[in-house]
């Protein structure tokens, strides 16, 4: 911090100088930001760190998995909380079944989520709650396939990978109205 202070002061002074120069009509090609301290980094350096998976499949990793392969690991690492059939339990949500149109509605991955990418993204970054980010990419593909299969979205031997996942049709994919522009 103490090393940086002089930089900050100099840069600010430069900024002020730019303004006063500009105001009397002289060109000065100083950067728009009076302070620019970000260190360049490459996307390759972020490959293991960036976990964001978009609905179009952007940033999905290599690897693949089927529901058949996911069943055992689901029972080992997920079923204690989410139930053997994904029906949920006290303190942990149901993952499959349900409907938006019952009273009350039951919102699950199967009945509610518009994109399969969100399931991959969330399980990889946040599950299981006691050890987030402990699953391998292959395990996440397998678990994603298994949960989707429990809701009948994909077949047991459907191979989920970075090419097939974005094409998975979620049951409630037309259920959302984007009001971000309002």
């Amino acid at each position, binding site marked *: 911090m103490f090393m940086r202070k002089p930089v900050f002061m100099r840069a600010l002074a430069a900024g002020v100088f730019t303004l006063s120069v500009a105001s009397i009509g002289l060109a000065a090609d100083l950067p728009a930001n009076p302070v620019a301290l970000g260190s360049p980094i490459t996307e390759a350096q972020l490959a293991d760190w960036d976990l964001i998976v978009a609905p179009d499949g952007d940033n999905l990793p290599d690897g693949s998995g089927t529901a058949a392969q996911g069943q055992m690991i689901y029972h080992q690492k997920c079923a204690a909380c989410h139930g053997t059939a994904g029906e949920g339990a006290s303190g942990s949500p149901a993952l499959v079944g349900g409907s938006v149109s019952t009273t009350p*509605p039951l919102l699950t991955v199967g009945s509610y989520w518009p994109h399969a990418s969100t399931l991959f993204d969330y399980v990889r970054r946040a599950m299981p709650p006691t050890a987030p980010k402990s699953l391998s990419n292959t395990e996440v593909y397998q678990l994603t396939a298994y949960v989707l299969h429990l809701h009948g979205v994909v077949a047991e031997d459907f191979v989920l990978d970075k090419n097939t996942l974005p094409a998975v049709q979620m049951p409630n994919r037309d259920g959302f109205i984007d009001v971000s522009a309002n």
Partner: protein
Amino acid sequence: MDTKNNPQHVAGNGLIHRRHLLGLGLAGIGSIAAGSALGADAGMLNIPSWSKIPGNGPSEYGTPSPFAGDVKRLAGGPSATAPGSGVSRTPLHLLRGTITPNSLHFERHHSGVPAIDPAQHRFVIHGLVRQALSFTYEDLLAYPMVSQIYFLECSGNSGANTVATAGDTNAAAIHGLLSCAEWTGVRLSTLLAEAGVTDAAAWITATGADAASMGRSIPLPKALDDVMIALYQNGEPIRPEQGYPMRLFVPGWEGNVSVKWLTQIKVADAPAHFRDETSKYTDLLPDGKSLQFTYPMGVKSVITSPSGQMKLLRQGIHEITGVAWSGHGAIRRVEISADGGRTWADAHIEAGQQHLALARFRLPWQWSGAPAILQSRATDSSNNVQPSREIWMAAYNPANRYHYNAIQSWSVSAQGDVTNVYA
């Protein structure tokens, strides 16, 4: 009789013109105030013991008086299935200004408060930029900063009042996922300019460094407008439970988008559709469709005193006071009713209130001892008016718990007991 002893009633059931706030002491209504249950001290007044011995010296970090020890957050117990998850709520009914002290700012964590060493923390901007950049905490401290007072409200705040039967709870339990602080930090637009956002960019997708790596997407126009990377909260480094060493702060929008422990902004052409903007924080409508990306918090107000589970101990003048706010601008007007919405009177709004910040309102009320229903109704600078509960409920599926901003009703019984009701 002069006006002091004959205050101007402006609406039913004892509401008095706000001009009397300054001129009218509690003794102003002589005959009624005399009926106070709180009689004057009897006998001689003695010099207290603390005036006879030196007190404690200065300390490094201040703490509240032990006699004010009940001014605490309402914190839920630990979650057995999701460690560190949960909320604590600001004790709105025990606070009287507009700024929330840092120790009392509400919390919502999805996987606990990470113990971040700022020297090792990195904040990265990448994606649709000309040059991806990595910043240290020290880097950010060297940038020009802005300071603004903003409220922060969880989108699930007040959701308790969407259930079929009104719970017998207090203002903190219902509305305490609301706080207001002065936030200081670096404008996100400054850092995005440094990285150079490309023409294809339309959104930013942000994640935190907590164990849940909580993520949210924000449209680029907002990100370039008033969003900041907050480093200070009420003048001191932001608290760990608020995102130390840095959080995104998105003024006026549902609290969840102000991603704490900010570590990543990936500039993108579309939202990421994170779990917390699809499964959660989406608003279910009566027909089973859902609104997604409902960001600004609606215009809202709540009377914090008298409020749920309080008891009025005497008849006579009471100050009705509370807070009002809107994610669409500033508060222009707050009206109060003491008769369940039949008649309304304008409350006094304290000066100094700002855009997207809490406003404090006040109005004197002469309680006759008859039952009353107290309500407040806010209007913002965009002319949005706080809706009734009936109107709000009709707009959503009964299961929706997000973005509830309807009028709060507190009933006052003849015994002075104040209770949460639907009216």
